[in-house]
């Protein structure tokens, strides 16, 4: 019985830790989707680019991945702004038969990024051998007679805490600063915001940059605990939009909850059904959310707020 409890709790812990990082990935996408109604299917590829930046900073200059949090996100902020300004904005103005040209465009951008990475860095798996990678805190160190053993991986926990910090910072930015308020106004009603003197075009560019910077931060947090290879991007693009849909489009709180739910659900599937099935669980929960809870977790929160 203790063993079963131990397995369950350990799975839960890793699920929550993973979920915190997922939430950060989902936040960037939900911001872009909420403000611009743009599905950014190159989200994970941007994260992959950030991870290569962090990887090379580590390999060449021995800069700790956590320190590259100060370098990679600003770079990706610029890249995101550039993509939005030069490629996505023109397409939004083009008249075409298909309404979803923009989605296909982001797929094209993703393909370019992924294959450029393959050309330059080959498709080998890379990792940053930080010396704390396998360190962990053990329950028995603090509680001698514990009936079961739990461990808390050091890099996972640091990454999780940093993710929480970044999320809080983002919340302050959106809630308190003028730029943040303008972004939220653009998300709510673009025309009204424009009439109130908000530079909607600029907000779009900033939002895309911000979304890219957030996912870049997630990339820096992932690299001490994950392998890096060019095709990793598409996998995380899918994860990002599953979280976004699960949370409810454009909802910040929803993205956080969505990330946590997905993280826990995936850990549980991996432990109790089988490693290979975790992605199936991911998509099953996604399709279920689309069908049964089209507004995502955010709609539940709102409903509760109204009845209160």
């Amino acid at each position, binding site marked *: 019985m203790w063993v079963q409890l131990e397995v369950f709790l350990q799975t839960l812990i890793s699920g929550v830790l993973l979920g915190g990082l997922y939430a950060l990935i989902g936040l960037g996408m939900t911001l872009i*989707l909420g403000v611009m*109604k743009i*599905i950014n299917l190159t989200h994970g590829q941007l994260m992959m680019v950030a991870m290569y930046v962090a990887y090379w900073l580590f390999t060449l200059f021995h800069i700790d991945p956590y320190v590259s949090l100060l370098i990679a996100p600003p770079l990706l902020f610029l890249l995101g702004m550039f993509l939005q300004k030069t*490629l996505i904005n*023109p*397409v939004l103005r*083009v*008249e*075409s*038969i*298909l*309404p*979803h*040209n923009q*989605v*296909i*465009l982001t*797929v*094209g*951008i*993703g*393909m*370019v990024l*992924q*294959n*450029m990475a*393959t*050309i330059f860095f080959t*498709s080998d798996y890379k990792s940053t051998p930080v010396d704390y990678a396998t360190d962990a805190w053990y329950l028995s160190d603090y509680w001698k007679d514990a009936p079961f053993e739990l461990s808390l991986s050091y890099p996972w926990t640091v990454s999780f805490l940093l993710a929480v910090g970044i999320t809080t910072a983002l919340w302050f930015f959106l809630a308190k600063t003028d730029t943040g308020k303008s972004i939220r106004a653009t998300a709510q009603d673009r025309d009204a915001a424009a009439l109130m003197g908000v530079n909607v075009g600029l907000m779009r560019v900033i939002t895309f940059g911000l979304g890219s910077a957030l996912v870049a931060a997630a990339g820096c947090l992932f690299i001490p605990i994950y392998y890096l290879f060019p095709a990793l991007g*598409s996998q995380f693009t*899918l994860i990002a*939009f*599953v979280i976004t*849909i699960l949370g409810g489009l454009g909802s910040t709180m929803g993205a956080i909850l969505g990330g946590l739910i997905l993280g826990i659900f995936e850990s549980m599937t991996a432990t109790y059904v*089988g490693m*290979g*099935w975790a*992605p*199936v669980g991911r*998509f*099953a929960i*996604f*399709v279920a959310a*689309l*069908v049964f809870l*089209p507004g995502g977790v955010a709609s539940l929160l709102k409903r509760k707020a109204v009845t209160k």
Partner: protein
Amino acid sequence: MKRSAPLIVLAGMAALPFLGLSSYVMHLLILVIMWSVSGMAWNLLGGYTGQVSFGHAAFFGLGAYCAGLASFHLNISAWYGFPLSIPFVAATALVMGLIVLRLRGPYFVLATLALGEIMRITAENLTDLTQGNLGIMIQRTWVEKTGYYYVILAVAALTFWVVKLLAESRWGYYFVAIREDQDAAESLGINTTLYKTVALTVSAVITGFSGAFYMNYMGYIDPQVVFSLGDISILTIMVVMVGGVATYWGPVVGAVIMVLLAEVIRSLPYVGTAYQTLFGVLLIVIIIYLPNGLVGDRQTLARLFKKKGAAV
């Protein structure tokens, strides 16, 4: 003249093997026709009905696995994959339709993408049935390419005819009405769910044929290949986007360009496997400058060349 153009092209294509083409050229022709079939099928749903699917690899892979498993488990010819795939693919399309067709716009795009990926991962994990990532290998029927060429040419002719028939019928107008404004179509009494389901099912079954042919022709499949998001779903979309959305010849033109481009780039030194970079660039350029594809925007193209001619 214009009406008989498809027949003339078909006759020309049927005569090609008599020219004694090399086996490599035949291989390219077969690939072009196979991608045309997939493209025409996708176009029915994406181009005419406006429902952009990122999950057509699900049907392609299912068709391929129907053929492969028939040969592997039942010891019958893989050619039975064509009739066998119809009920399986149609049933999958109906179930998928139940889930995705009530969704609109971006939600639809994302849901099809997810369902396609679910099919891939399921195929990878059901190792007892599909052998997982080991894949399935079958005995090919012919050594020569000519037989395969005529089979896929027949499938393509049939597909072209079905798409034309549907697009020019009353149903075709319903499809376009749904694409242009679903609410307006509904308010005029068009049963949008029914017509979207029809478009999805027909599109899926034809894509399944393409997959069944792939199994027969290649002799080997695995889930990573036939259920691939990048190599099947997105390439199918690219064939249509590059060629021309909602046109008869668009997918054919797109398939010619994509297959030839892939071959040329693959043969270049250094680029090798990363040929998709140029695909991506091509896709971006097409979407920005010719959003309706080479055939769809041929007037823009013509104007471009005229201007250049005048300047010289």
